[in-house]
């Protein structure tokens, strides 16, 4: 693949790769740093990459190695996912390659609009402001456990809503 194609694909698939890297390093800012590294490496190796699926597989592989190295450097080894589990998860990520995440995000936006203001605020604090659960609990004057329960419930509601919207059962 030429450099231009590599960059185009990686920009298009940025959200998925960020999700993959986030799964490994658990911090969105670290995932963003890693993504940049992966892009740079992919551009250096563009001639060895044969097609889009190869690029995505390769990017995940490199991202995983770099991510684990980063965790080791930060002495967080031992609190991550085991290598064999990461291998098992690869099949699920492979399936995710066929998902059109832009469309899914649009559907998700509709689902988020239906959430309560408090639930939307929790999402904003957690995912936009990267606020930790304890801090969210202090802001909302609740217990940390309640924040986790709320996040769990919100994710579940969003997943169900997305599934319905995908099938066209529920419209915005």
């Amino acid at each position, binding site marked *: 693949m030429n450099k231009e194609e590599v*960059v185009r694909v990686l920009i298009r698939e940025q959200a*998925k790769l960020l*999700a993959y890297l986030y*799964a490994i390093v658990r911090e969105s*800012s670290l995932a*963003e740093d890693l993504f940049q590294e992966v892009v740079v490496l992919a551009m250096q190796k563009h001639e060895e990459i044969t097609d889009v699926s190869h690029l995505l597989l390769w990017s995940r592989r490199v991202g995983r190695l770099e991510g684990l190295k980063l965790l080791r450097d930060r002495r967080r080894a031992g609190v991550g996912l085991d290598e064999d*589990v990461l291998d*098992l998860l690869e099949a699920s990520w492979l399936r995710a390659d066929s998902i059109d995440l832009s469309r*899914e995000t649009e559907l998700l936006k509709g689902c988020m609009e239906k959430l309560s203001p408090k639930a939307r605020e929790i999402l904003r604090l957690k995912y936009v402001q990267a606020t930790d659960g304890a801090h969210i609990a202090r802001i909302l004057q609740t217990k940390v456990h309640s924040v986790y329960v709320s996040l769990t419930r919100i*994710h579940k509601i969003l997943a169900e809503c997305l599934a319905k919207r995908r099938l066209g059962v529920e419209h915005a």
Partner: protein
Amino acid sequence: MPEPMPPPGTPEDFLELLARRFDAGLSPDEERRMNERLRQDAGCRELFVQHCLHAQMIRKACATESAAASPSEAQAGGEESGRTDSARKSRRSTRRRRALEGRPSPWKFAVTAAGFLIGLVTLGVLLPSGDDRTHAAKAERPRPSEAPRAEPQAASEAEERKQAQAEAQRRAAEDRLQQIERKREELSRRPALPDANPGDEDRRRKEIEELRSEKERIEREMREAVELARKVGAPPQGEKPRGPQDPGEVRPEAKTPAEGTRVGVAKVERVEGEAYVLAPTGKVAAKGGEILLPGQGLETSGAESWAVLVYPDGTRIEVGGDTDLRELRADGGKRIYVAKGAVRAEVAKQPAGQPMVFATPHGEATVLGTTLRIVVESDPKKGTRLEVEKGKVQLKTLAGKTALVESGHFAVAATGVELAARRILRDALFVTDSMSLNASDQAVLKRLDRLGFRVTLKEASKLLLREDAQGKAVVILSSTISPSKEIPARELNSLAVPVLTWEFNLFPVLGMTGSKKGDFGADIELTRVRITNPTHVLAAGLSGAVPVTARPQGLKWGKVPPTAVTIAVPEDDPQKAVIFGYEAGAALATGKPAPERRVGFFMANESAASLTREGWALFDAAVHWAAEKQPVSAK
């Protein structure tokens, strides 16, 4: 401390475990259970991947909303309209805290994503030259002095027509995409009939393929349109070129008519407290929305004051209290002089060969696109401290020495301070016998502060070790405490946080030495020690016999096993280690693995007040090593 989780069984349990994993993290036991669950249950694997994808999509969805709302944020519109005053105030103070503490702003994700996209495009891969964008932007932007009044109006109408046209095209493309998607799903779901003509099936497949190609083409065209819009530097929403002056608008005195004809460098997005625009004609109160011209500056007065500057390319500078910025320039690359105070900057990717430069009285930082924080002290010995959150920044001192400072590192340009990039540390817990520190503990506290730690000082009698040590890079235990009474041994020897101590009674409690008489002590009156392992980072580059205190001190020592690293011994007794450490996992004197790095140091109760330069160098190295702070080579 998180409560122990019952073994997860339902999807809800697993989702809750995920929520905790991507927050404060799981205990090793919970992480092990999560691994087991993922290993055994394919459903959990799907949930795990789905959770990560959803997190990313939520971030993206919120960032889009946030970016759309941002121009009106200052006017308390959009999302802000539903908030109470106290909520706004709270958010403002959070922002101020962030500016000072270097925490991410709510725009960070949107700005980073946009900046990164533009950055990739301008890397020279998709566009021939990064300079084109700048020149195009300058060419497109009308200059009031160069055009008669009717022209901006006509240009504005033409621009509006173009925008309306583009919007209509975008909507049509999106509609078509939805049609394609529906048709494709319908075709994909249609079952192949057993008695169907093979030709029908081929046609169905061909149709699906054609729809897929068309969808890809439309998406590509839409992306290219977005990139093109970025390339020509279309002004962000809400930043339309100013037309004739609003009769009700009060123009700041600092803007003379001659200056008004020049292109602005940056916009003052927000101001809290006292802030002034500095111009050659004097200084006037700064207001949100004000454009800063080349050569002008911004000053905030009072510790609580705060301001935000934004550049047309999205570069954003948060200006802390009592800060003095001067000489803003943009020709041939952005330049700003930070005379004093603190700034935090999110710098968008800059054109090749035109880095942004932050100059200070002590040096300058050259930036190509990153997030950083600069603190300028008036004391030349404290100098300029540069912290890099993201990307790489070159820091150059007035003497011409340079250091490349990478993400997660900091460097100080100051008189008498070696220029080197070092990792940014988080927090340290310093435990003493009381909050009224003796001279030695005071000296340690100052030293830790200078090394860049945020120190939590704790009186031993009020210590809740596990809770207080949580999230700390290192725990430092002074010899002024009475360990046997005040700190439970069980908590101490299992503490999974690096520990540095010069309390010899704690050596056996921590498992660093044996507990018998003769295994540890404090009976050597010396001022010098001999470095036995000069190549180790704990030796601070020293070798041979070095003076460590100005006055003879009863140095603390311990007899350690070979699994420890011995750095220094008394000149006449190589069996007694006066500086020693254990790597995390290394076998302690008790045979158990060290839960984290441990360092034993020679100081007595009053030693720090009379440490020599070499003594402090060894102390710094001990803290660095314990908290994993390794100096990075300076050029």
